[in-house]
């Protein structure tokens, strides 16, 4: 069920009517079956599951009894396509068209939960049918993701039925412009894009700026590799962003908003565009919204593939159609931003928080979290972790709880080695930091940052020097070239790291890396350059022994850096079958007859083919 035409909503009572009518229309359904339609599940072919579900329900005449919802991300992307059956919150994973037919026939009609299709908890060796009992969901608190995965993303009525757009009404009718930013200051909400600037104070600055022409911009240029929180919100609950921008526009006095979304997110763009279209039809955007006298227009601007555009001043240039190079600050965007006018820029997740905070009050929101970090944070959990996906947790939870309780620990029986927080601007933390509280201050103190929310877990087969090289390669490639420290400094750092992983590094390189890193941090123009050295600095600090192994002993302890690997055949174990020699693509292996086979390291390309073919485990890496 997606949006029927609800007509133009002229007043607040129209909004209340839509809410009432929607709740009435769904109360007679015996079941609601939600099929996750996040990008992760789409890649796992949830569309086929949805089609099969609709067909089977029609075939069995269940149209009046079962409500089928295509929602945004349910979170457990690794096990997609996922399906939730209510009442009972039965959570089916890895669904297929065949399995969903069984669920309809045996669960919906027969009343028996199909346990073998539900979530399987490996540590306990048992199926856990109910969503709330699954460890992945147990410690989560869903504020930003309140609707994500539980409503039809395309239905404005369902969003309204969850008090959607009532936050805007409350801001205008009860709080007023000053009251609204004061409520946000009270809530302690800070920017979720990474920097953590208090949102209420930012909005107050926007309000205080003189001028009739102001703008509010949503930064949806989520470019950190390993981060997909904002995409999930844009895809799963687009109206919450529209409402957040409406409230922001009203507070600061802007009648025009922009949402900047990266071109890599076609589904997010499509759903947000559709939601904006519906909002205009219903009179939730445009002139005199809900009879409040407030006018607001909203446009999407699509990026064109440049990481630096996530930096707020570069993003402004990009919206204006220019090269996405950062601008010198001051003046700050709240003073002179888009087209030289006062502009407030907020991240997707920040804006999704706003309507709930307005509805439930700043004190309620501040009751979650620790110290100066209040509320919750959404993280994208990925890498060598058992359950990857989207999670939302209260600030102050420990890294260890995120990795082991929610994420289910490391895959394939390997050991935890590091967790990378904050993408190319962040840092790698070790197992000694698993007890650290996840909040802005604690993470900064460790040299990592909260960042936008990407968490990449790495197991003991990861080389930290190679990881640092990877991030430096990324930043080097994405540096816009505007300032020297970032353009040339990162290039020199990358060259040193490339030398080290190739086995040609020297001890003095480590000091040079540190000096360069600190110089870039102090002198680069924008956030990209200033934070670019963080992955190198944190790995140098916490994994120095690995760097030393590379530069002094010319070995890679994790066996990743190819050029330092030496393949050897144990003559004791070698049975002289010759399989390795026959399969070696570079003909580096010789021997045979009575002689054990040997590998010529000069010729060996270190591809590992011989190890794969040896049946006696005679070949190893030194």
């Amino acid at each position, binding site marked *: 069920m997606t949006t029927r035409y609800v007509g133009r909503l002229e007043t607040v009572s129209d909004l209340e009517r839509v809410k009432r009518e929607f709740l009435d229309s769904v109360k007679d359904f015996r079941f609601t079956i939600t099929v996750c339609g996040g990008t992760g599940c*789409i890649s796992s072919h949830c569309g086929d599951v949805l089609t099969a579900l609709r067909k089977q329900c029609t075939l069995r005449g269940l149209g009046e009894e079962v409500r089928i919802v295509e929602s945004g991300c349910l979170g457990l992307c690794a096990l997609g396509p996922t399906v939730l059956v209510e009442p009972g919150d039965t959570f089916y994973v890895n669904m297929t068209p065949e399995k969903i037919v069984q669920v309809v026939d045996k669960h919906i009609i027969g009343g028996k939960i199909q346990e073998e299709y539900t979530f399987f908890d490996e540590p306990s060796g048992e199926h856990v049918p109910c969503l709330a009992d699954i460890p992945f969901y147990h410690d989560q608190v869903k504020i930003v993701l309140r609707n994500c995965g539980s409503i039809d993303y395309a239905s404005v009525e369902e969003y309204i039925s969850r008090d959607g757009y009532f936050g805007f009404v409350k801001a205008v009718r009860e709080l007023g412009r000053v009251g609204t930013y004061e409520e946000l200051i009270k809530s302690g909400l800070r920017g979720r894009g990474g920097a953590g600037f208090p949102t209420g104070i930012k909005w107050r600055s926007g309000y205080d700026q003189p001028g009739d022409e102001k703008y509010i911009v949503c930064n949806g240029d989520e470019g950190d590799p390993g981060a997909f929180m904002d995409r999930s919100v844009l895809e799963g609950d687009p109206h919450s962003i529209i409402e957040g921008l409406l409230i922001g526009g009203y507070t600061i006095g802007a009648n025009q908003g922009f949402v900047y979304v990266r071109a890599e997110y076609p589904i997010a763009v499509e759903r947000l565009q559709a939601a904006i279209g519906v909002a205009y039809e219903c009179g939730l955007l445009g002139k005199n919204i809900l009879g409040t006298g407030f006018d607001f227009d909203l446009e999407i601007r699509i990026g064109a593939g440049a990481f630096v555009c996530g930096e707020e001043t570069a993003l402004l240039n990009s919206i204006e159609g220019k090269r996405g190079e950062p601008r010198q600050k001051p003046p700050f965007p709240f003073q002179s931003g888009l087209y030289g006018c006062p502009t407030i820029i907020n991240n997707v997740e920040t804006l999704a928080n706003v309507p709930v905070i307005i509805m439930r009050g700043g004190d309620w929101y501040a009751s979650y979290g620790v110290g100066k970090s209040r509320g919750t944070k959404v993280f994208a959990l990925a890498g060598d972790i058992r359950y990857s996906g989207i999670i939302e947790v209260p600030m102050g939870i420990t890294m260890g709880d995120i990795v082991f309780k929610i994420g289910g620990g490391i895959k394939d029986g390997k050991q935890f080695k590091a967790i990378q927080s904050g993408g190319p601007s962040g840092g790698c933390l070790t197992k000694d930091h698993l007890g650290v509280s996840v909040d802005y201050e604690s993470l900064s103190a460790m040299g990592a940052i909260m960042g936008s929310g990407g968490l990449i877990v790495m197991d003991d087969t990861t080389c930290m020097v190679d*990881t640092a090289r990877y991030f430096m390669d990324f930043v080097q490639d994405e540096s816009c070239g505007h300032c020297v420290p970032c353009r040339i400094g990162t290039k020199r750092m990358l060259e040193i790291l490339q030398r080290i992983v190739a086995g040609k590094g020297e001890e003095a390189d480590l000091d040079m890396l540190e000096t360069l890193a600190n110089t870039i941090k102090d002198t680069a123009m924008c956030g990209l350059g200033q934070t670019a050295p963080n992955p190198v600095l944190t790995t140098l600090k916490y994994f120095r022994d690995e760097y030393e192994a590379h530069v002094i002993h010319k070995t890679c302890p994790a066996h990743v850096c190819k050029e330092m690997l030496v393949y050897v055949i144990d003559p004791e174990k070698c049975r002289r079958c010759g399989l390795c020699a026959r399969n070696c693509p570079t003909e580096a292996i010789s021997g045979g007859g009575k002689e054990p086979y040997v590998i010529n390291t000069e010729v060996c390309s270190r591809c590992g083919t011989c190890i794969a073919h040896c049946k006696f485990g005679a070949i190893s890496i030194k």
Partner: protein
Amino acid sequence: MSVGGDVIQDDQRFERVRKLAQTKAAEGASLIQVLHAVQNSYGYLPIEVQRIVAEVMHAPLGTVSGVVTFYSFFSTEPNGRHGIRCCLGTACYVRGGVRLVDFLEELLHCKVGHTTADGMFKFEVARCIGACSLAPAIAIDDKVYAKVTTEELPGIIASYYEAEGSEQ
């Protein structure tokens, strides 16, 4: 894709670019939006096309060219009929994305950043396509393939040739 020599056809196509750019500019589109539209229509943004956009937008060619070369989505060379983007975001990198890149380079006889000799695929690596839970992932056009192995790749590539064969 236009092949050199077909002047009349080129003239018509350039005329279409001009009209499109004019329409977009009249709607108040920014330079980036105009370039998105033109690239969607023409396929890529060679210097002749950039010159037309510059004229329409009353901007120096240098400005247009500066924007085109700044953003990775804009291409000054012809693209393949399909775009393969092999993800090397952190999650995919950690989960073995490089192996897929190496394998595809051999399979397609084509280096990263180039188009296959038959014009079928443009092969690129992506910084992160946001499918981190499904690492390692590749995207062909807008379709994302999850948890890809080197064993699956020949079949995936072949399916595009088969689909093209059945269309003709």
